[in-house]
């Protein structure tokens, strides 16, 4: 069973279909603590209602008030393309193919942050450190900071703010680790 936090982070960046916000907030606190990052208590991250939590996801990542503030796709940020299915999308597909993986049928584009974090988890499970290093250096760590900036600019619910930051820290630490291996 895959247990890497990247699967959790991937899942957290997917649309919340079922009300697991309490458990997710607690897990996020644990992950933050594990990496020495101070975050608010889990209960502070829980929104008033689950429907609010879902509509916040829509606002941030699908179609929402104040425009789609943080489109969660590599294509938007690589070369500052601003639209889907450009260089960032091609790059993601290249890395997947090189690792012997292909995205399954999904309504989400394969360069969605949830796909890329899950891919990271699979690479870690497979000990595929060469592709891992190159994927982080040449792709995910290139665009993630721009995405995080837009996410924070959107003044998201605390959960998504913390999720963005914890993901950033995990990516940064992992990146350093694989570079030094």
């Amino acid at each position, binding site marked *: *069973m*895959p*247990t890497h*936090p990247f699967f*959790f982070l*991937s*899942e957290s960046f*997917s649309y919340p279909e*079922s009300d*697991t916000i309490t*458990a*997710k907030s*607690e*897990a996020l606190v644990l*992950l933050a*603590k*594990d990496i020495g990052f101070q975050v608010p208590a889990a209960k502070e991250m829980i929104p008033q209602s689950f*429907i609010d939590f*879902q*509509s916040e*996801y*829509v*606002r941030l990542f*699908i*179609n*929402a*008030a104040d*425009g*789609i503030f943080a489109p969660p*796709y590599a*294509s938007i940020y690589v070369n500052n393309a601003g*639209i*889907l*299915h450009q260089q960032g999308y*091609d790059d993601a597909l*290249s890395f*997947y*193919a*090189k690792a*012997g993986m*292909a995205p*399954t049928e999904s*309504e989400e*584009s394969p360069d969605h942050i949830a*796909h890329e*974090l*899950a*891919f990271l*988890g*699979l690479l*870690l*499970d497979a000990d595929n*450190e060469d592709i891992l290093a190159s994927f982080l250096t040449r792709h995910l760590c290139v665009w993630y900071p721009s995405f995080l900036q837009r996410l924070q600019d959107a003044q998201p619910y605390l959960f998504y703010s913390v999720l963005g930051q914890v993901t950033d820290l*995990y990516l940064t*630490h*992992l990146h350093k*680790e*694989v570079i*030094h*291996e």
Partner: protein
Amino acid sequence: MNRRHFLKMSSATAMAVAASTMDGLPGQAGLFRSAQAQEIKSFSTGSLGATEVTSVCEMCFWRCPIVVKVKEGKIIKIEGNPKSPVNGTRVCARGNSGVQLVYDPDRVKTPLKRVGARGEGKWAKISWDEAFGEIAHNMEKVKKKYGPHALAYFDHGASAEFMRGIFKAMGTENYTSEPAFFQCVGPAALAYLQTVGYVTTGTRQYNDMANSKAMLLVASHIGENVHVSHVREFIDGLQNGSKLVVVDPRYSAAANKADIYLPIRPGTDTALMLAWINYVIQNKLYDKEFVANKCDGFDALKKEVNGYSMEWAAKICDLKIEDMKAAIKELAKAAPNVNIHPGRHATWYGKGDTGRHQAYAILTALFGAVGVPGGIYFPTSVKTGKAECPEPEKTEVAETDISIKDETEYPFSSMFGTATRDLFHAMLTGKPYPVKLLGVNGVNIMQTLPNPYDTMKAINNLDFIFCEEMMAGETAIWSDIVLPDSVYLERYDGLYAYDGLTPYLTVRQPAIKPLHNVKSPYDIAKGLAKKLDIEGYSCKNEQEFLNEELKGAGLSLDALNKQGGLVTYKGNPYRDPKSLKLGTESGKVQLYVEAFDDEDLDAIPKFDPTPAPPKGFARLIYGRAPMHTFSRTMNNLWLNNEMPENKLWLNDKIAARLNIMDGEEIIMENQDGKRSNPIKVLVTPGIRPDSVFMYHGFGSKSKHLSRAYGRGAADGYMMTNVVADPFIGADSKRTNFVRIIKGDKTLNIPELAKVPSEIPRFKSKLA
């Protein structure tokens, strides 16, 4: 944290994390499957070696045949279909930018349900099943509570046809209230239908500009309102030596090419036309044989227009009499190969709009320019089959004691559907019966209709509103359920049979698989029909009915594709004047329309002046930008880059008096005190001092359109004085007036063009 922590992480934290979701985490690993490892060195750029898919553009309603170039499942480039007799390999800026529409991150990606207030734009994602269920539940509930006619459909474009069948099957009479008609071409369509017996100007325009010897354009936006074949025919005409007369308060792209330009006072076009008709008759410049043999009502016309002299018209229209005479002589000299072009958007002043177009049709007939090269011509229909399956089996309008169509004040509206103003009146007042559910498809409901303030009130009176949209625009934020439509490059649609000079048959077909969680219009209608237990829509997919319909033309999809996706036919646009028989009751041109007289409307147009601007105000006029379609393309990356905002054209002398510099930002205030978004000023001598002009479609109030939001101003939000066309109830758009707010100062617009006493002045409390 220890080194190698991440690379071999299996800590208690990770296990706790794994247990934190109900579904568990392996689901995320399921986003991938194993595949043959392969090195993709680089994705090749450019369109060389791309797969070519022939299709039909939908960046505007003109629908040019196109070739879509696809590589590695991505659209690289769009060009015109070389087999197309109308656009050839050419597409316009908008046609090119279809690529950007497909890949726009602001597309509606999944069905959405409103969870905030209407207009707030707060949504949750829902499944298609839930979306169909919600819509079906509300349609049935409203039908049960108020009757079938409480359901209404408001639509535009190729996506809309399939869903229309659902509303018909539910029994409502309100399934067609197209803004394309009641907000645009309606008065022109009625005038030509009654005068020459067919609609020369509807979705298509049967105006043979390319073969004309002279053309008259009255406030046409050809060259700015770009339809590729339209512009090509116009330019071909000019290259062939056709003389051009342009009548427009604004120095438009077409005016720039005119032999004679007449900068007319807005609202007086019919005065000019009637004076010209009188001049043509008095000076015997008309085609005597054609008028004697093919026209009814000449004597009545002659008598009616007798009082409209050139001297009178020069004063009313603020034009030079010698220019007016030179223009009509130039047009008469070219007869019968003269094109009196009806323009396109006809809903200007309300009460005079049908009459103005009747006058164009009359002048056309006086010149004998019917069914001849250079004049108006006849469509050639392409024979195809008819498939039953893309529709419901039963589509009967339910009987009703009170019908909007019977109760209407506008006697000719029901020939074409439910007048928009009647429909929204029912939504606002419940009279003659309440309309409580609205389906909207392909229309920006806030920008298409004037007076969006009333539109908002009408929407808030509804029990339920849903829309089918590609982009999360203003309609979406007011809807209870938003259904994501596939982009035209991702889907099939109906057949496209062009009936112009060189007829052709082609089809729209998908170049790529749909992105996100969207569906084609056919699948959306089919899915909703199933929820409503409406029988029909029996074709498995669009190919099935397309093949059925193509069979009638001796073709199939495969056969059509083997012929470059398009086949042409021989046209039959012209007629021998001697054997000409029109679609009117007598088979002749009706210079006097008895059907209008029967309804106590003018059988021959009269000049009934539209009020001039109140003191301190200028008339607001508007038009199309060449790189944008309505209000729907402002968020497109490429098109937004070309024109990110609109500007307010202000006469240079007025600007100097008001101390306004080119590029300065101002706010408009209309005659009722409504204020616009900030808009930059374009100081130019190319607009009359009594008018200001802006391109339509900007100033989106939808925060969801990230590039378009708040850029420029929306003309519709300045339109609170709306006058109905008495024939069909079409809504006027040029009956509003603005002054300028600069900083904290309100600036009245000085009057440089004196208003004659025959023209009343609009009364504003602010003047």
